[in-house]
């Protein structure tokens, strides 16, 4: 077995891992090893051929592969060592790691620091409780996306989509453009799960109906899918008897949410948040295990790839300081999600003299909202928003001078207040 020692090990070469590797290299860290299980760099971006990526970072709307290409071009100029087709099979709390590929066999790796950048995976039918047969023709939106955009396959003639997440809506348009009939998008919640602009440009543009408060009850077909039964749900998401409707189709596409992929984190006994489903992290994106950092969708499912790549850079800076044993506060304080706030990143704050970036969601739609960051009843920061929605992640940056006012011994709380009426739109 080959043994490798390195300064920084990065697991996953999607936008978080690529950005982290480039930033760590730029900061002068040497012996960076980037492992990727796929046969190319870029992660899921390579199958996201639609546009809309990179408005914040590059001030233009790139497609997924083009966004990835910018980072790939850059990393090729760097000193980062890349291993493709390499699967990490074990990660331990002492940061030792085992990986496997067909060239090296099993690799034993001993890094100074690790950045987890494994991304997320899609929820499947097993997690949304659909009754009935288990025939072919039922797949997640991401699988369909890979079939159509990478493999060049057309896996059906008539599709039903369950869930109105962004990928589901984007695939509705993609199928329509490739000649697959899209009967409709069914959403169990009373409002769409993805961005309004995708309702507009992916569904309305192509006259694809969106059925809210409706779900798929069961699937039918012995070998291949022959149809699904949809059913209306009440305000408690309970199915309403008598509203069932059969739809003949040969493709059921699931766009029912994403979950951070943390098998390796769990193996290394890294504490996982029950809210974000990712590791509990501080403002350097270090997990509760010293020297192991987490970036991108493995931490929390981010809305924008620009947030993902930015988090990669934050983790790289944290890892660089850790490797150089630079001074930072040994103690951390809690960053708490207060009223109306959920999915807050980071959950811990360690004073490091740098600006503090916060990512979170509102629990409900609130008009004329204001975000307050409080410590012991004192307001450290306040910002107003015309409207906040659960499906749109909020990013705030507290400049270094504001951060200096934080007492390093008391928890801080982020809350959203309603200054106007609450709308259920």
């Amino acid at each position, binding site marked *: 077995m080959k043994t490798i020692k390195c300064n920084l090990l990065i697991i996953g070469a999607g936008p978080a891992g690529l950005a982290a590797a480039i930033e760590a290299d730029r900061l002068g860290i040497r012996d960076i090893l980037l492992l990727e299980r796929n046969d190319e760099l870029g992660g899921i971006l390579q199958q996201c*051929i639609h546009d809309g990526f990179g408005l914040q970072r590059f001030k233009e709307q790139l497609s997924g592969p083009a966004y990835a*290409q910018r980072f790939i071009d850059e990393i090729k100029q760097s000193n980062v060592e890349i291993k493709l087709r390499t699967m990490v099979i074990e990660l331990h709390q002492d940061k030792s790691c085992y990986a496997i590929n067909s060239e090296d066999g099993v690799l034993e790796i001993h890094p100074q620091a690790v950045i987890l950048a494994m991304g997320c995976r899609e929820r499947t039918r097993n997690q949304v409780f659909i009754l009935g047969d288990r025939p072919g023709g039922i797949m997640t939106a991401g699988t369909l996306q890979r079939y159509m955009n990478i493999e060049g396959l057309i896996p059906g003639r008539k599709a039903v989509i369950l869930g109105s997440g962004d990928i589901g809506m984007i695939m509705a348009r993609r199928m329509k453009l490739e000649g697959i009939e899209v009967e409709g998008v069914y959403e169990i919640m009373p409002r769409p799960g993805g961005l309004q602009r995708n309702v507009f440009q992916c569904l309305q543009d192509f006259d694809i109906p969106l059925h809210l408060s409706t779900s798929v009850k069961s699937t039918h077909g012995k070998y291949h899918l022959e149809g699904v039964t949809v059913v209306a749900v009440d305000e408690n998401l309970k199915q309403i008897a008598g509203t069932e409707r059969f739809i003949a189709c040969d493709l059921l596409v699931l766009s029912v949410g994403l979950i951070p992929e943390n098998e390796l984190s769990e193996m290394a006994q890294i504490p996982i948040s029950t809210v974000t489903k990712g590791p509990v992290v501080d403002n350097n994106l270090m997990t509760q295990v010293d020297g192991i950092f987490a970036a991108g969708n493995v931490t929390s499912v981010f809305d924008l790839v620009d947030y993902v790549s930015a988090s990669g850079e934050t983790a790289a800076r944290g890892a660089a300081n850790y490797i150089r044993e630079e001074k930072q506060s040994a103690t951390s304080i809690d960053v708490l999600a207060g009223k109306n706030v959920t999915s807050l990143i980071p959950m811990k704050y360690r004073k490091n003299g740098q600006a503090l970036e916060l990512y979170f969601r509102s629990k409900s739609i609130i008009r004329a909202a204001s975000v307050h960051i409080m410590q012991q009843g004192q307001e450290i920061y306040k910002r107003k928003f015309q409207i906040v929605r659960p499906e749109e992640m909020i990013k705030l940056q507290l400049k270094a001078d504001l951060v200096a006012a934080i007492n390093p011994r008391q928890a801080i709380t982020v809350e959203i207040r309603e200054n106007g009426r609450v709308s259920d739109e």
Partner: protein
Amino acid sequence: MNKREFTCISCPLGCHLELTESQGSDLPEVTGNLCQRGIDFAREEFRAPRRVLTTVVSISGSNSLLPVISAGPIPKEKLLACLDYLKRIKVKTPVTAGDVLVENILETQVSIVAAKTVE
């Protein structure tokens, strides 16, 4: 008075735009936007809607596909015809992200460019 509603697709915020066309005024009025892009989008959407086109094209002598994007938005009614055209072309490698593959596709004044580098 002519009133129309749109969702802005210029950025993920997705502003809810309201456009009002009144007689005697050249440019329709737009409300609900948070920036200038919203005004521009609503006026164009009202006059002649355009969309960015993305798809994949074949690569000569390979089973891999090349993702492509239109360099700018294409008139909506020409999207399907452009897509059809792109289904029939084969691209030679090597190709670099940003390379123009089809210039002025179907007289739209918009080029189709590679979104990815393939060596």
